[in-house]
């Protein structure tokens, strides 16, 4: 007997909202990025699950997940580059100091 798809989806939803919670409450750029990665990751899970349970004959979800992982890697690389640069400029990565782009 296989595990019901709902279980996967429920797990993904819980993880996603844990990521959301982190995104809302953390004050540190790297922590925010970690939360974002969590959310992206759960989306990937959903793609894979839908593919496996709905259309196993095609591989759309599979490839979406793969590309998603790729994009996440790229995004993280750029984000971290930005964070490092910001840190160089303002000597902080605390979110309350990120005011230069506000106005």
């Amino acid at each position: 007997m296989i595990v019901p798809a709902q279980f996967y989806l429920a797990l993904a939803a819980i993880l996603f909202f844990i990521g959301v919670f982190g995104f809302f409450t953390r004050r540190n750029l790297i922590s925010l990025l970690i939360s974002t990665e969590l959310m992206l990751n759960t989306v990937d899970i959903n793609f894979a699950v839908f593919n496996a349970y709905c259309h196993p004959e095609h591989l759309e979800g599979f490839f979406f997940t793969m590309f998603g992982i790729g994009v996440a890697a790229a995004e993280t690389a750029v984000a971290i580059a930005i964070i490092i640069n910001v840190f160089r400029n303002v000597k902080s990565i605390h979110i309350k100091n990120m005011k230069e782009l506000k106005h």
Partner: protein
Amino acid sequence: MEFSTNLLIFSGLALLMMAAAFAAVTTSRIMRAVTYLLFVLFGTAGLYFMLHYTFLGAVQIIVYAGGIVVLFIFAALLIGKGTIDVTHTSNRRYLAGLLASLSGMALALYLINSTDFFADKFSTVGVPMKSVGLALMGTAKHNYVLTFEVLSILLLACMVGAIMIARKK
């Protein structure tokens, strides 16, 4: 017998992932947060293996666990310990975030529970490497060479961009 094994493994993974995720967003040490994230990523790879997407699991481990997490660690180390102590926002915003996340979670779970959109077509065969390669490089229907190329360009652009941004003046 088999289903109970599957369920058992799934439950183990789920518990591990939830605990690790929660810890990742609440711990006050950045290195620990990264490490907890690593556990979640590994758990995700486990889920892919359970879905018989072994290639995807491998990619997950290599790219995420091997690449991204290393990037995080480098960033944390570069920035230094003193500045990256994690502090939470004000109580009010903490509660607002908690409330929004919990209600969202409840809504999502309710939707998942109340909807039955799955025809049970799950196959235990898995995806052979050959078909993955062919689909990735093919030009026919349900083939993804264009996406693959676009993604390659994107990755290149990101690499250049990251170097440009992070480079010392």
